[in-house]
């Protein structure tokens, strides 16, 4: 049975697109058929993070408006053959997305994919509402920082009120993904701890993604961090998160990047 997952946050810049790409790729690595869908009309970036920016011909709005078939707009990932991208439009207005049109595209995607991962735009307006509208499950991306936690709380309220599932009276499944976490700073009392954020937002924890240079490296080269640096701390955290979404029970931990010392740098390559 296919699942529609929305990656949302309210606040911008917390890692929705990075997380969409990383989780989408991790799910596809496990053999699932995955479509990642960019809902950020006018400010699309999932194509860039996935390294498919030069292959975009048609987009979500073309499909919604019937100007292109879904199969024409889907871009197959070059590295994983079960991973596809449906890009957002860069030029069109977001009002071109209609609720009925998005519903139709979601139904079509459900026919061919196990997972449909929707990358929500920031904010709480139309685009964000359409991205969450048909979701079965939500991943709320939050930084351990006051404004991000507040906005996540707001988004959780909207997930419980404005989604199709909520309107049918069903429970909307929500998971917290804590990104850019620095365990050492949290320990020193300089950053909200995992427990603090969990207590405030009271939704189950999907994963803790440590702050790491591997994330920026991955977007620099246009490849999900779970593919380009699968051994890195954030990639391991994303891979565990993806497995939890698939129902596996994995102990929660905060992976750390291996510190490579001077001797390690000299001799490390041979071992790697």
């Amino acid at each position, binding site marked *: 049975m296919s699942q529609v997952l929305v990656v949302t946050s309210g606040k911008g810049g917390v890692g929705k697109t990075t997380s969409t790409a990383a989780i989408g790729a991790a799910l596809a690595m496990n053999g699932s058929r995955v479509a990642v869908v960019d809902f950020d009309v006018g400010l699309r970036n999932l194509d860039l993070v996935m390294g498919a920016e030069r292959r975009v011909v048609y987009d979500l709005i073309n499909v919604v408006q019937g100007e292109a078939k879904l199969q024409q707009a889907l871009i197959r990932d070059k590295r994983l053959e079960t991973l596809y991208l449906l890009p957002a439009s860069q030029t069109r207005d977001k009002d071109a997305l209609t609720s009925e049109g998005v519903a139709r595209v979601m139904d079509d995607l459900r026919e061919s994919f196990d997972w449909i991962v929707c990358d929500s735009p920031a904010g709480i307006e139309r685009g964000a509402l359409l991205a969450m509208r048909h979701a079965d499950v939500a991943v709320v991306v939050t930084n351990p920082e*006051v404004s991000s*936690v*507040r906005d996540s709380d707001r988004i959780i309220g909207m997930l419980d009120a404005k989604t199709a599932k909520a309107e049918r009276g069903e429970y909307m499944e929500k998971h917290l993904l804590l990104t850019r976490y620095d365990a050492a700073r949290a320990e*020193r*009392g300089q950053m909200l701890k995992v427990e603090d954020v969990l207590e*405030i937002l009271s939704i189950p924890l999907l994963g803790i993604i440590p702050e790491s240079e591997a994330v920026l490296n991955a977007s620099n080269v246009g490849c999900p961090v779970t593919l380009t640096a699968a051994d890195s701390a954030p990639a391991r955290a994303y891979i565990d998160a993806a497995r939890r979404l698939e129902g596996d029970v994995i102990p929660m931990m905060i992976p750390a990047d291996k510190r490579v010392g001077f001797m390690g740098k000299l001799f490390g390559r041979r071992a790697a």
Partner: protein
Amino acid sequence: MTIFDFFRPTRSAPVARDRLQILLQHERVSAGASDLIAVLREEILEVISRHVEIPAEKVQVKMQRDEAISTLEVEIELPNPIRRRAA
């Protein structure tokens, strides 16, 4: 800043946690109903204006939200002499 501050970083996270807990407790309540302050302001004004003529702009409502208690401060300027509404 002294040399000792360097070794003793400020523990600001507990402050962040407490501020968020108080704020969100209030925001969650007000997200369901319409703006509570506005409702109270309108209704208090309505009750008083049943008896006394008061201009709407002479009513000030302030709210202070704290963890244990919140205070609602209502200040109504009544023009002298007070003009009672005809029954």
